[in-house]
């Protein structure tokens, strides 16, 4: 298990370095970074000053290390739009994103587990078809559009739920439901197929042979094994969760990272985008590292090896 975790941490750093090289070289490829930071009214002298300030007169490797060391301490500069340090904006938005993501994750899992399990147990039944249609819809319908439809129904027509912002707990309902629907369908599909596989295995047969009741076979023996394989896809799902969160935040004007990214795009605010992408990337990778460690800890086959 130690080895597994070390490998994952190394891998995370490699990814981060790759990401930073990517961002860094994209900026360089795209031309003069000073042009990204200054508006059209800037004079040639402004450019000169900024180039020196940014260290653009230094060799490329030195520039990269400067970029990295600044990023490492969270220095992404000032937002070109409102002149607020990027780190401050991100620091304010991050907890909001986390709140939304966690609420939706809990909601999604609490829907997906019964949906996926019962669908697998009653394979081919009416219930199974119903559950698969729900899960299929969740994967086929664009998240942002679902958000709009929900706003139309609950905020516009019935006027029972707020459509944007995050002042009260009622504000959580629509965004987290939208995000949860999207996450839920992926979990439910994965859970269904891994349940089907597990239910077909010899050790489930042995549990039945022991006289274990069907509910215990399903909810104890089979579910635990299937959740394990869902968990092994943790990294992928966290990336998907992040993507979904950004979209949902945009739709519901939720003051999180996604909203920040959207504003960044609208205002062509390069330092802000760069900060959001790097911080977002780090967060996603840290959380998928945590899921993997959790997975390694929960699965004795990994916990007790090398």
């Amino acid at each position, binding site marked *: 298990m130690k080895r597994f975790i070390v490998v994952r941490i190394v891998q995370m750093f490699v990814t981060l370095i790759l990401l930073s090289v990517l961002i860094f070289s994209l900026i360089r490829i795209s031309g003069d970074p000073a042009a990204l930071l200054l508006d059209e009214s800037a004079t040639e002298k402004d450019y000169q000053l900024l180039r020196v300030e940014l260290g653009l007169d230094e060799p490329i490797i030195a520039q990269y290390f400067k970029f990295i060391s600044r990023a490492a301490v969270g220095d992404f500069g000032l937002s070109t739009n409102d002149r607020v340090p990027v780190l401050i904006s991100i620091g304010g938005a991050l907890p909001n994103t986390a709140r939304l993501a966690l609420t939706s994750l809990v909601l999604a899992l609490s829907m997906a587990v019964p949906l996926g399990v019962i669908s697998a147990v009653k394979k081919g039944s009416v219930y199974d078809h119903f559950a698969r249609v729900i899960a299929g819809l969740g994967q086929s319908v664009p998240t942002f559009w679902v958000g709009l439809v929900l706003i139309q129904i609950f905020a516009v027509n019935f006027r029972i739920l707020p459509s944007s912002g995050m002042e009260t707990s009622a504000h959580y309902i629509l965004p987290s439901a939208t995000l949860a629907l999207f996450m839920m369908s992926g979990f439910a599909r994965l859970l269904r197929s891994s349940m089907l596989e597990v239910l077909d295995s010899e050790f489930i*047969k*042995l549990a*039945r042979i022991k*006289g274990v009741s069907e509910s215990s076979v399903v909810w104890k*023996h089979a579910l635990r094994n299937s959740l*394990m394989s869902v968990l092994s896809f943790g990294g992928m799902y966290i990336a998907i969760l992040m993507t979904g969160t950004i979209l949902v935040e945009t739709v519901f004007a939720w003051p999180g990272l996604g909203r920040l990214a959207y504003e960044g795009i609208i205002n062509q605010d390069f330092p802000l985008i760069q900060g959001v992408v790097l911080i977002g990337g780090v967060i996603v990778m840290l959380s998928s590292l945590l899921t993997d460690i959790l997975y390694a800890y929960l699965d004795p086959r990994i916990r007790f090896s090398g």
Partner: protein
Amino acid sequence: MTQPLLKVTDLKTQFRTKWGLVKAVDGVSFHVKHGETFGIVGESGSGKSVTSLSIMRLIPQPAGRIVSGAIELDGLNLLELSEKEMRDYRGGKIGMILQDPLSSLNPLFTIGSQIIEGLRIHTSLKGRSLKERAIDLLRRVHIPSPAMRMKDWPHLLSGGMRQRVVGAISISCEPELLIADEPTTALDATIQLQYLNLLKRIQKETRLSIIFVTHDLGAVAYLCHRAAVMYAGRIVETATVKDLFDKPAHPYTIGLLNSMQKVEKKADHIESIKGQPPNLKNLPIGCSFAPRCDQVKDICKEKYPEETELGADHLVRCWVVKKEAVKIK
């Protein structure tokens, strides 16, 4: 004559598949006496494993279904029990060992908890005595340092050891009947022998009855008292093991014995059964062995043979059966 422990009458189990209805078990009858080891021999697809799963009523639903017949344990028809009542029998009065030791234990639970689970369902043991009983069971199946093994995870044990744990689980609640479905196929020769001897010893100690399902006639000779030979979902011959090897009557049994490659003596030539194993999806109308049989008569192609009694405990289904014993070369 005392009543047999298990009496299976005209059991039919069918599967609905993509290609149509498959009659995996088609009218199988046999009985198992108290304290005996009854072998069911057959090649792949002969229905031997489906027969044993039918007794446990664990045919995969909804594709598979026990269509008709009776399975009586001590005079009680298991097929008439409710699912809940049947669960008391599974792991209680009937134990079972599966073929593949590597995948029949749940990788996420310790050895100890998997043994205790069954005990908790079928016995009134609690707490410490549960654990002691489990350790005792591991000791009985000759697992070294059993108390330490209780906390181990399945993947840390060798295949032979895991199969012993499965054995311990199967006898944990003192069953009257133990079904062993090819328990040694995946094991090496010396480990197989250790395991078969363990089964023998357990049977001597507890007087339980064993149904031993296998494709290996040698293992039948080693372990069983009586045996049935299955072909294409039906039992073609039932006899004591001695009769089966000395006086086989059905051409298929004779063919199987002839094609055995003996370890005791070098053979100059081994006769094989011609043709291919039957396709259950489309069996011939008459005797299913007719296309491969070298003594086939017209009637064989028209009607499935009736049961002929050749002697005490010796039944055969063949139209051309010889009353005289057939000497095996």
